[in-house]
Each structure stands twice: as C-alpha cells, then as structure tokens.
C-alpha cells in the first residue's frame, strides 16, 4: 500500500478490491470457527447419554428387624423402570458398598434400566435412609432383607416371573454389596445371576490374612483397613441413620461392635470373631452358590485382594455354575475404577443370563471357570494424562497358580530381622484406604499410580531381610500368586510381611500394586520351612530387571507383635512365578478415523484442486501474429461489484515501436498491464504476445520484461543480490542476463551493494527498470517509469527507451503525462474509463502543431484580421482569445499581421488534438 500511495495514485477500484479481499479472509476464518463450533456443539448434544429419562419411584419396604423379631424396620428403596418397555422385564437388585447408600447407585441403575431391566436400589440397614443396625451381611439380617426385597419385586407388575413369587432377578453390587450378592444367591434360590465386585470370599481371612496358610485363627490383623471400616460405621454423618453415641458403636450392632473391639485391642483373632465373620462370608455357603457369576475384582486392593475372588470362582465352578473373572485396574486402594467397562460387562452378563426367555439357567456338573479378563496398564496417555488401560483376555480362568510356572533363583544369606518394640516404626507397603478416603480418583489414583512410580513402599533396614535374583534375561509376565519358600527361626510367634519388588537396572524399585503378604508362623523357635503365597498380581518384569523378595517385621497396615524380638530368615527354595501366556491383549485397532480422516482429507484436497483448475488457456498460437509483440483483442475486466476496469480494449504493437499507453488515473492502464503479465485473468478477450495467449505462467512471458505499479524487491538484500537472485529465479542462463547493461541503466554506483531497504524511491525505481530489462526482453513494459525520477534521470530514461526500441525490440510505456508520451513514444493508445479513446502514431494523434491559440483582449479584431489571410483555414473565438487552424501560414507571419493591425497579442501557443481530447476527457470526468 505504501508504494501505491507514494506514487500518488489513489486507485479507488483497487482499494475497493483490497477491502473486499480482506473481508473475504475474515469471513473465511469466521466461517471456519463457526463450523468448528457447530461440529463441537453437535458433539455435546450427541455425547449426552442421559437423553432417555428413566422413571424412578422411591418407597420404603418394611422388613423384619431380625430373626423371630416381630418388629419391622423400613428399608429405603428406589425402583427404576425401563423406559418404553411394555410387559414384564427381568429385575436387578443393586446393593451398595460399605459406608454408602442407594444414592451412589443411581447412574448404574439408570444404565441398567435403559438396557431393559427393572432395577431396585436400596440402602442397606444402618445406612442411608434405612433403619436398623449394621450386621455385616449376616444371613438373618442383611441377606434376609435382600430376600424380602425380592419378594417385593415378585409382586411388582413390571417384573417378569419364572414362577409364582419367583421373579427373574439378578443381584449386583460392589464390596459390601458384592458379598451380599453372593450370599443372597446362596440363600435364595430365586436369584438367577449375580455380578459381585471387589468383594470377599472369607471376611475373616480378608481381615486376618496369613499367607503362610495358617488361616484366620493365626492371621495377622489388618488393623488399618478394619479401623477404617469400623470408623465409617460409627462416625456421625449427615443424612445417615442416627448413631448411638453412648456405646461408641455407632450404627453397628452391639455383637459386631464387641467382637471388633476385642480383635482391635489384641491384634489377634478370636474364635467368636472368626465365627461371626465367616457367617457373613460366601465361604460359609460355598457349596450353595450355583448361579452364573461374574466376578470383578480390583488389582489395587489390599483389603479384598485377588485371591478372595479366586476362591469365590473356584467354589462356584465346583458347583457347576458358569463363572467369569475380570481383574480391573481399580480396587479399594483406588486407581481407575473402569466404571464404564464394569457397567458394560455387568449388563452383558445379565443380558446373557436374565434376558433369554425360557427357564432360568440351572447349575450342572462342576465346570472349569469361564473367561478371564485382565486390565493391564500401558504408558500414560498424554492427551488424557491418564494411564492407558488395555484388556487382555483368554477363554479360561486358570486360578492364581497360572497355566505355566517359572522358577527364579534368589540369592542372599541368612539374615536377622528385628521386630521393634511396640511394632513401630513400621515399614510401608501401601497406604490402605487412601482410595476410600479420597473417593474415586484424586488421592486414590495417586496411590494406585504410586505402585507404578516406585512409590511409597519402603523397608526399614534391620527390620528386613532381602533376597535378590539375577537379572531376568527376558520379559516375564507374572499373572497370579508367586510363591517363595523361606526358613524362619528364632521365635515362637513370628510375623513377617513378604513383598516382591521389581528392581530396574538403575536401582529404582517397584512394588506391584503396593501389596504385601502377611505371614504368621507359630512354633518356629527351632526353625520352620514355610511357603509364602505372595500377593496375586498381573505384572510384567522387564528383561534386565531383578526381583527382590523382602521380608520385613512390620507393616503400616497390619498389627505386628509389640514385644521386641528378632528372627532369622533364610532362603529355602526358589521363587515360583505363575503366568498365563494365553492371556493376550486383543488389538483393538484404532478408531476408524485414524486411517479414514487422512483418506477423506486427500479426497477433499483432490476435489478442491480438480474443481479449482483454471479453464485451460491452451489456445493455439496464432501463426499470423508470431512477429507481433503484442496484440490485444476485446479485453475486458470487471471488478467485483460490476465496475468495468477494462472495457473491450483492442490494440496492437509492432516490433520496434515505443507505445505510450496514455490515460488519466483510473483509466485501466495498470489493470491492462497486469493482465499482460498474467497476474490477473481477463473476463473477456485475449492478449497475445508474439502470437501466444497470455495467462498465468505462460512461457511466452519470459520474452516480456516488466515494471508495473512500482518496484518489488527483497528489502534485506542488496540491489545486486536482488537482480542476481531474480535472474536465477527465471532459471535462464547467466550470460543471457546482460547484467552489466542493466546495472549501467540502474546507475546506482556503490549503492548497488547496499540493502534495498536503504534506497530512495528513485533508486528503487531505476533498479526495477533495470530488472525489467534483464535478459533484454523482446517486449518491455514499463508502468509510469519516470515517476519519482528527477528531470535529468527522466531524460536519460527517455534515451534508454528510445535506444532500446531502436534495437528492434518493443517498448510499452504507460503514463498519465501527455508530455512524456509525446517525447518518448512513436505510437500512442489513449484510454479512459477502461475504453480505448484513440490510437495511432504519435504524430498523427498529436497533430503537426497547426492549431494555434492566440491570447488577445480583442478577439473580434483578431478574427477580422486573420480570417482572410492566405494559409489560414479557420478562426474561431475562444475564451481569452482566438483559435486559429493553419493551412500553410507560418506563425511568425500571423503574429506580424496581428501586430500590424494593432491587435494586442498576449501569447501564442500551439494547440494539439491529443491535448484537446485529453482535456475533454478530464473535463468529462
């Protein structure tokens, strides 16, 4: 823009076009943004899956307060009815986890209802809006409640029945609710399928585990978890059933409360405790659970580890019912709960066993467990900042021993382990209950992540014995419970916590899932060999890593003896690592668009390019015009908005001519020259240079040298470099350029090696004309070449152009200055408002100078004096004088006559036709 204004040529039309162009860009960008937002808006609308409303009704269902108790307590329930289902549908009873209420089940319930189930959620006794006290899933209390709810479901008109009073019903729930599912299936034959999650097989064993196989009677008290549980049942909390604060037992039944206190204080089990916990456990009715069961257990679970689900699976398979096993990335210690996957699997499970018409499935002969799915964590996905999960599966769940075992030798001397007085300080495996405390995600995810980060596990030196393997020579995937054999001695009651670390070459250690296996060995004063079942995991040990078995005397999550003692620990055998090689991650492939999008993009691109091709300007060369440097016929260019910039323009130029393109500003000269350069496309007509039609990039343009609408240089390069690079850009031989001549025309002297940025307007102008003359083109087109030049330079330029044409080449010069054209050109084309006004040799157009304007105060006398003189054609009055057309008379003779006749002569000037035409034009405009 600056160049244009520097030239003082306010092209209204050009400016209009620039403005529309800019607004077109803005419009394009806006359109893009609108499209993006529209697409995303659709996405939000589609992504909203709560579109179908599910009808939910709340009601209290009264159940017996206890066995043989006439009193009744109210259970708070919500019934979800599938939308748009006519007739009866199978039912699902959903039970919540410990410390929760029916409210947390709403999403799951709605999802199941949308899949066509009548869903009943409820708050267990002692929780939420339900009355009663917590009995820990006892058969006569919580299980009886569930049975009463099944009675209630059987009476509902929406629920499909297998028989009178026997609804088609499945039970599902997590943790507390999961055990309830298993127990209800055992106690109520009407249950047709269950999907328990992260729950126990033997609550006594879960809270008093012993990895050496001693059973809960010799278990190690899981004090942290037990404490968390107990406190969540005793702490006052808004909206929950009122708490009996006198006893400190909260919502717990006194019997449960008393037993907990005994165990918590002593850190050891009691027969009563074991008995109570066992009654609330599937293990007590293991031979009676005979319905299709989907077991979903979390790998991040130090409360109910994978072995609890393993034992459930084994028991149910023994009873001949179908069992499938899923290990998720979640669990009570947190981590990703994979809610969507769990929901999908649960729904699919019920679809398989509850939906089919006909009789409910019956258990048969003992079978092998069905399919096995394990969620494996890959790396972190930077897009979601979450660990990527992949699901490996196989047809058959083999149990924690795996389908293949591999022995890995450990090394290490016998070591002494000191149990600190009071059992403190402790080593750490994980932080139990972090997931529970923090809810899902949050800290829980951190704790789970910590398992893979090497994390928080540590073993106090002096309290721990270390045994290490060689580097493994290839990747080893452990799936199941590794076992280790050690010999312990030195005390009668030995408590140890066994952990198996994965040690990277750099020394970084990882305790998979932060799990430790507690071991209690009695009567080992003189030494006993024990086999330790290490925590079940699914973990890959990379090649080059080592395995380290650590036995430590304390653990933050467990009660250990208060008495200071020391034990000796030695290896008694290799480590056995189970694996399930048939587990493999099915390639999920990539979303369709991963390949589809680039293909679509290529198709769109091709369409854009093919439809966007210019109409081929492949008109044949005109053989008659091959010697005619320039021939323009019917040239028309219409600007957007309809204004004609060039209107049916036709003219020709012959070799050796210097053609002046004359017209006022805005006459269409520059537009014509731009079309001549192939920069803009004509709307009609054609331009031929040496017979070839000109279009963008037409090869014949290489015979054209041009300087149009100001110079165009790279400001950061010197004049010499600009010319040199320009010539190289033409790809033509260096010797054809005639740099010396061109540089001489530019006349820049030493400035030639300065950056163009530093040039004056005139210097740039001369350099641009020199550039146009590089290669001595056969046709040289210069637009206002003298703009910005001083008079001597203008004169020199004029000589250059005349000399250039004298070599047989052709020059076209545009100008709005009459004098310039007159002095330089042999021929002239006059344009106005895009149209051709006149064309021909300059002499013809300009005339021969035989019209005079004589200024005089007495025109009448002058006319009378002159009109009869010989050699005078005509005399007419004009403002301020007379206009005389000569027909042979000489000007000096006329002046002498006038003076002789006493006519005062102010001035005598020649009047030319071109000027007439020009003035008329300008007068019009």
């Amino acid at each position, binding site marked *: 823009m600056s160049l244009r204004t520097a030239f003082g040529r306010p092209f209204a039309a050009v400016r209009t076009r620039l403005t529309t162009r800019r607004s077109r860009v803005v419009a394009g960008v806006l359109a893009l943004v609108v499209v993006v937002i529209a*697409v995303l808006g659709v996405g939000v609308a589609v992504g909203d899956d709560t579109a179908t409303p599910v009808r939910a009704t709340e009601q209290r269902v009264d159940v017996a307060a206890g066995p043989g108790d006439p009193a009744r307590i109210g259970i708070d329930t919500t019934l979800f009815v599938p939308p748009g289902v006519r007739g009866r549908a199978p039912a699902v009873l959903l039970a919540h986890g410990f410390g929760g209420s029916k409210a947390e089940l709403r999403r799951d319930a709605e999802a199941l209802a949308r899949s066509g189930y009548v869903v009943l959620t409820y708050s267990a006794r002692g929780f939420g809006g339900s009355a009663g006290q917590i009995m820990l899933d006892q058969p006569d209390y919580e299980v009886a409640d569930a049975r009463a709810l099944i009675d209630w479901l059987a009476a509902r008109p929406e629920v499909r029945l297998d028989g009178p009073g026997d609804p088609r019903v499945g039970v599902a729930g997590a943790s507390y609710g999961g055990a309830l599912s298993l127990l209800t299936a055992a106690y109520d034959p009407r249950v047709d399928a269950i999907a328990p999650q992260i729950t126990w097989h033997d609550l006594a064993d879960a809270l008093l585990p012993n990895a050496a196989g001693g059973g809960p009677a010799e278990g190690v008290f899981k004090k942290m978890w037990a404490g968390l549980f107990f406190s969540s049942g005793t702490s006052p909390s808004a909206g929950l059933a009122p708490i009996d604060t006198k006893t400190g037992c909260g919502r717990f039944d006194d019997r449960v409360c008393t037993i907990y206190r005994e165990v918590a204080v002593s850190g050891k089990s009691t027969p009563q405790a074991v008995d109570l916990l066992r009654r609330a456990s599937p293990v007590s009715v293991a031979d009676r659970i005979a319905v299709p069961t989907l077991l979903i257990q979390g790998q991040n679970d130090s409360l109910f580890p994978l072995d609890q689900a393993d034992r459930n699976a084994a028991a149910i398979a023994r009873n001949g019912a179908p069992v499938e096993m899923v290990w998720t990335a979640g669990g009570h210690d947190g981590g990703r709960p994979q809610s969507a996957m769990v929901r999908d699997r649960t729904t699919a499970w019920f679809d398989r066993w509850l939906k089919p018409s006909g009789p409910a499935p019956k258990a048969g002969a003992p079978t092998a467990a069905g399919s096995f799915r394990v969620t494996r964590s890959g790396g972190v996905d*930077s897009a979601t900042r979450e660990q990527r999960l992949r699901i490996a599966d196989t047809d058959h769940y083999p149990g924690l021993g795996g389908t293949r075992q591999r022995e890995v030798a450990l090394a290490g001397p016998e070591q002494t382990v000191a149990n600190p007085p009071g059992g403190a300080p402790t080593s750490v495996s994980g932080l139990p209950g972090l997931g529970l405390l923090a809810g899902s995600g949050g800290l829980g995810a*951190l704790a789970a992540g910590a398992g893979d980060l090497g994390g928080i596990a540590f073993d106090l030196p002096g309290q721990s014995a270390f045994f290490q393997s060689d580097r493994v020579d290839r990747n080893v995937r452990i799936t199941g419970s590794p076992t280790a054999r050690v010999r312990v001695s030195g005390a009668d009651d030995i408590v140890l916590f066994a952990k198996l670390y994965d040690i990277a070459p750099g020394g*970084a250690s990882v305790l998979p899932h932060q799990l430790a296996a507690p071991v209690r060995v009695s009567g080992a004063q003189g030494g006993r060999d024990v086999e330790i079942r290490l925590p079940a995991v699914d973990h890959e040990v990379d090649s080059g890593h080592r395995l380290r078995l650590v036995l430590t005397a304390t653990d933050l999550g467990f009660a250990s003896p208060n008495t200071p003692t020391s034990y000796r620990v030695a290896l008694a055998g290799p480590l056995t690592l189970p694996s399930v090689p048939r587990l493999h991650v099915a390639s999920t492939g990539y979303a369709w668009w991963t390949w589809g999008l680039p293909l679509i993009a290529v198709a769109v691109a091709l369409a854009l390019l093919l439809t966007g091709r210019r109409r081929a300007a492949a008109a044949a060369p005109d053989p008659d015009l091959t010697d005619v440097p320039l021939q323009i016929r019917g040239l028309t260019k219409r600007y957007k908005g309809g204004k004609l910039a060039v209107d049916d323009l036709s003219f020709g130029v012959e070799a050796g001519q210097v053609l002046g393109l004359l017209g006022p500003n805005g006459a269409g000269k520059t537009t014509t020259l731009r079309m001549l350069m192939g920069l803009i496309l004509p709307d009609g007509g054609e331009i031929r240079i040496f017979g070839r039609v000109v279009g963008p990039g037409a090869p014949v343009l290489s015979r054209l040298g041009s300087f149009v609408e100001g110079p165009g240089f790279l400001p950061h390069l010197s004049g010499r470099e600009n010319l040199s690079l320009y010539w190289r850009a033409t790809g033509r031989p260096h010797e054809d350029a005639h740099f010396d001549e061109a540089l001489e025309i530019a006349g820049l002297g030493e400035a030639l090696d300065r950056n163009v940025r530093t040039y004056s307007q005139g210097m740039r102008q001369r350099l641009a004309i020199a550039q146009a003359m590089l290669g001595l083109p056969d046709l040289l087109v210069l637009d206002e070449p003298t703009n910005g030049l001083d008079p001597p330079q203008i004169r020199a330029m004029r000589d250059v152009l005349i000399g250039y044409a004298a070599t047989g080449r052709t020059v076209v010069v545009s100008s709005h200055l009459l004098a310039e054209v007159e002095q330089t050109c042999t021929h002239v084309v006059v344009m106005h408002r895009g149209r051709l006004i006149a064309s021909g040799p300059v002499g013809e157009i300009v005339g021969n100078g035989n019209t005079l304007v004589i200024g005089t105060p007495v025109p009448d006398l002058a006319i009378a004096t002159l009109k009869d003189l010989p050699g005078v054609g005509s005399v007419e009055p004009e403002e301020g004088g007379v206009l005389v057309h000569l027909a042979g008379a000489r000007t000096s003779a006329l002046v002498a006559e006038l003076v002789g006749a006493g006519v005062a002569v102010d001035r005598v000037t020649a009047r030319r036709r071109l000027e007439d035409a020009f003035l008329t034009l300008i007068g019009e405009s």
Partner: protein
Amino acid sequence: MTRTLPELPTDEGAHPIPGAAHAHGYRPRHTLPIWVETVRQFRRRRTLFMIGLLLALPWILVAAFKIGGDPSPDSVPTLVDVATRSALNFTAFTLFVSTGFLLVVAVALFCGDTVASEASWSSLRYLLAAPVPRARLLRVKLVVALGYSVLALVLLPLMAMIAGTIAFGWGPLDLPVGASLPTGEALGRMSVVVVYGVVAQLVVMGIAFWLSTVTDAPLGAVGGAVGLVVVSNIVDAVTALGSWRDYLPTHWQFAWVDVLQTDPQWDGMIKGSAVSVSYAVVFLALAFRHFGRKDIVS
C-alpha cells in the same frame, strides 16, 4: 545526471527468434530453484532472529536452572522435575516448554510469511511474470518453508543437547516416574519425538501457508495461524467436549511425551499424525486452489 545508453546487442543468438514460444533457455521446471528461494529467505532478519532465538533458548534455560537451582519434585511427577538430570532430560524439557507456543510461532512464521511477504514487497508479481508458474512457486516456497520449519524443530533439541551436556552432563534419560532409559534407547526415542514434532506441526504449517496465499499481510498470516492454534487450545480445554476434542488441530501436540516412558504409547501419536496430516492436506489444497485462481493485485 546525464548518461548515455549502454550498447545494446541487436543480434544476440537469443534475439529475436520470430515466433519463439519463450525466451532462450527458459524452462518452467527450472524457475525459482529451491536453493535460490532458500537464499532469498535466509538473509531475512525474521529468519535469522527466529533461528537465533531457538539456538539461544537452551542457554537461557540452562542459566535459569543454574540461577534457580535444581527443580524440586512436585506432587505430580513431570519433566521439569528431572530436567537437570542429564542432557537428554534437559532436551526433553526444552521441547516440552517449546512445543505449545514457541515452535508453533516458528513454524507459523516460516510458513505463513513466505508468500504474503513477497506480496507485501511486490516482488511476487515479478516472480510470477518471470514467469515462475504459480504451482511451482507455491511448491518451492512450501518446500523451503518446511525446510526451515524442520530446521527449527531439529536445531532446538540439538542445541539443547549440547547445552545440556555442558551444563548437566551426558547420561541416561531419567523418566519423571522413576525409571530411566539408557542413552542409546533414549536417543532413539528422542528422534521419534523430533519426527513426531515435525508431523504434529504440519497442521500449523498448512493453516499458515494457506493464510499466506490469502492475505498480503505477512504478520496477518502468521498471527492468524497462531491465533487458530490458540483458539484450538482453548477449545481443547473444554473437557466437556469429550472425544470431539480428538479432532482439534492441537489436541495431540504433546503426544510425543508418550514415548518418554518405559512403555511407549503410540496411540496418541498415530491419532495426532492422522489429524495433523489431514488438516495439512486440506489446507494445502485450499492454498494451491486459491493461489492458482487468484488475481494478484499486490
């Protein structure tokens, strides 16, 4: 100033050949050779400044760490926690802090400026009248702009590695999560990072290049491309959009982080490449379509 006309040759072999379709020695495929365009662009202050900035950035970061001390680990492990462990760590960190904006600006500058600046200098019309065929002009400009972009994306990690080696020593790549990669493997991973960095920036390149053909204001093209990237980043922050964010041009620009862990993830990078290449292809097609038809009025 009076000068005489230089002697102009009248009977050159090249002149005048009656009816010649083009000047002597002119061949469309030889116009605007790539190296000529490379030289034309290289001497620009803008190019030199950007390259200089990319070369200086690692040293600025080194100075920052030397003054500020080693980073203290955060609750969530990140690349910055381990930035000073080794040259490779420092390189990864440098790339991490540059990917979101600096490299975007560099690529947008090289690709958005290239045609628009010629238009603003008015040199475009003389190139086109030389004549350099329009498609060829765009191709050469694209190749050179891409070349400079790749140079930027390679120079930065290279200089970071040099600066890192001097400042923090050569060593294995410590991952934020605790493990570490031996140098050989880490170098391999770094090359993947750089290659993906280039592929992920293709979308910026495409948008910038298209804008460059549309506008005559070089900074408009650069700013427009950067602006679209910023808008994309903002929209990407709206997590409620869910999987629709996958299609945003910049959603995957940090996916290369996925190889800086023991278990490299390819998913994000494959998706990111698909999205980036798709946008780039369409925008380039738009650029060629538009430039092939447009009236050059600059």
